[in-house]
């Protein structure tokens, strides 16, 4: 991520922990940055500076941050439209992401894509896809290319509990196992697809079992716990990298905000939301672990928060100062120019 220092990886001081102090501190900061960025995006949306649709990732931060911890440089990431967190986790700059939200020239897609459609060749981030489920076979295609090139890379393909019911997901599962493609299918089960709960949309609500008939191993993971996410993702990534094929990780998580900025989320109770916020918040959980291990004190953590807020605020400034794209951009990049 943008603000990360590359520190040496010292060994954990607590015997049972699989992660180091530096890892956990990095993840804590990464999650904070996503949270503060999303809060800022919500503000800009409220001010009318972001048009159209905007889906915030607040509550789900541990998923992308934990998975990213298990990825290597050159691995690919692809997801749906709730994509800001994924981009920040891959190290894409907050400025360029926010400027895409405001449709400015400084955005990652020069204002052509908006909140749901951004890419970074540099970070091997393949979008940002507004069509639910569309990214899943594309992610397998990325993995196919890795296998073909024998480059040892894998593809992290994210999708939601709602997307898990699209037919093309199962066409993909079949091919991915048939050809043992190095792909992680990461199902972000935040328990709702817009206003429809998993129970009302899925005959089998344990989504990690969806690969059984294809022979794809699956696992349910506490998606609010960044360490649990990392451990599961590491195991799955090792599996894929070793040529053993795809792996399904069902991340049990929760989105605090409405589906998009225009959703008042009347289909669930305030108590339900609060029970997650108050007892399962991924950032608070990580904080407790850090303090418990004595890896940092409150002041240091507050400093991290300040840092995250500063980056988010700067990205908002950048996104407002960046010029509108030139009108001629409307017609460019449709086909190769020549």
């Amino acid at each position, binding site marked *: 991520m943008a603000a990360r220092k590359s520190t040496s990886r010292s060994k954990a001081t607590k015997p049972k922990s699989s992660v180091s102090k530096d890892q956990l501190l990095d993840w804590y900061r990464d999650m904070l940055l996503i949270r503060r960025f999303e809060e800022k995006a919500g503000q800009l949306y409220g001010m009318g500076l972001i048009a159209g649709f905007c889906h915030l990732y607040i509550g789900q931060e541990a998923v992308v941050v934990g998975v990213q911890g298990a990825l290597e440089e050159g691995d690919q990431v692809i997801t749906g439209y709730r994509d800001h967190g994924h981009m920040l986790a891959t190290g894409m700059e907050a400025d360029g992401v926010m400027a895409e939200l405001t449709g400015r020239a400084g955005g990652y897609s020069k204002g052509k*894509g908006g909140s749901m459609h951004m890419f970074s060749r540099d970070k091997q981030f393949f979008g940002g896809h*507004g069509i639910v489920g569309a990214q899943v076979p594309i992610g397998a295609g990325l993995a196919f290319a890795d296998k073909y090139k024998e480059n040892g890379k894998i593809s992290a393909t994210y999708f939601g509990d709602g997307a898990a*019911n699209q037919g*093309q997901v199962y066409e993909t599962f079949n091919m991915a196992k048939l050809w043992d493609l190095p792909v992680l299918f990461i199902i972000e089960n935040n328990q709702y697809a*817009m206003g*429809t709960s998993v129970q009302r949309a899925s005959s089998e609500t344990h989504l990690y079992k969806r690969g059984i008939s294809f022979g794809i191993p699956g696992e349910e993971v506490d998606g609010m716990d960044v360490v649990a996410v990392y451990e599961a993702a590491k195991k799955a990534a090792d599996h894929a990298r070793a040529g053993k094929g795809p792996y399904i990780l069902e991340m049990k998580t929760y989105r605090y905000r409405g589906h998009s900025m225009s959703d008042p989320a009347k289909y669930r109770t305030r108590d339900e939301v609060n029970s997650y916020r108050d007892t399962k918040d991924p950032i608070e959980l990580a904080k407790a672990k850090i303090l418990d291990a004595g890896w940092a004190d409150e002041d240091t953590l507050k400093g991290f928060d300040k840092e995250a807020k500063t980056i988010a605020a700067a990205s908002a400034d950048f996104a407002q100062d960046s010029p509108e794209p030139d009108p001629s951009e409307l*017609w460019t990049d449709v086909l190769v120019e020549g």
Partner: protein
Amino acid sequence: MPVMNMIQALNSGMDVLLERDEDVVAFGEDAGYFGGVFKTTDGLQAKYGADRVFDTPINEAAIAAMAIGMAARGLKPIAEIQFADYIFPAIDQIVSEMSRIRYRSAGQFTSGCVVRTPWGGGIRGGQTHSMSPEAFFTHVPGVQVVVPSNPYDAKGLLIASLESGDPVIFFEPKRIYNGPFDGVPDKPLSSWAKHPKGEVPDGHYTVPLGKADIVREGEACTVVTYGTLVHVAEAAAEASGIDAEIIDLRTLVPYDIETIAKSVNKTGRVVVAHEAPRTSGFGAELAAQIQEECFYALEAPVFRLTGWDTPYPHAHEWAYFPTRDRFARAMKTVTEAA
């Protein structure tokens, strides 16, 4: 008479259909419990029960295809695709099955159903929430294509569509759900209460398929359009003082060439307009048919006012969208052509 916006009118249309005939069922993503993302099916599940008005998982191909099977067994399905941009996963079923059941079975089975879907731009929705994909469907023999432009027509056409006994793709211009739009982006929304077609009877009535509506009589030129742009055309005639005759097509398949030809034979000058891209858009069909019917009456080339041949943009939406001013320029071009 009650005043309704387009959402309420469509809701009332479904209410009438569900009330009158037990074989009518309505379904779609978030269409049941939540009442639809635009609230078009609001209250219908509570009134008719979850057996008749229900949520589906996110799987457009199966939504369309289930409607075919249901219809073949005598049910009268109203299927909702949440945005017209999401209809593409269903296009195989619509093209290869829905449109051909009657033909293929020599009339033994039909697939009479309505596929309703919010359509069109002007809401800053970017490339996956703004499309006008009508031309994909007007190219398919065996499906009818309807686009209402006001609450009264929306309800009457919806009822006529389901009662037609053959499949209808029913595109709902979402920009004008809550009020007519005159193609001037920054002006505040006006209300259907001020529009004569905002008056909608409570009970059953139909607006026949295949009949266009002359919404403004004039001598200087003919404008043929549908959906949101009907209102933009009216505003352009008003603003420019050009005495245009404006035809609201209402049904694209079958379309009312008689009304069009009569008008063009009178004015000799014509603008055909839609939001969708220009190449192979429905305007191309209209232009071709107009020259076949009215060649010797034409005094200027047929003008196609359309979106550009680009994906629907996020930034610069108003450079893409046929606004009031672009409309007025088009009318001026055809009226001034020597």
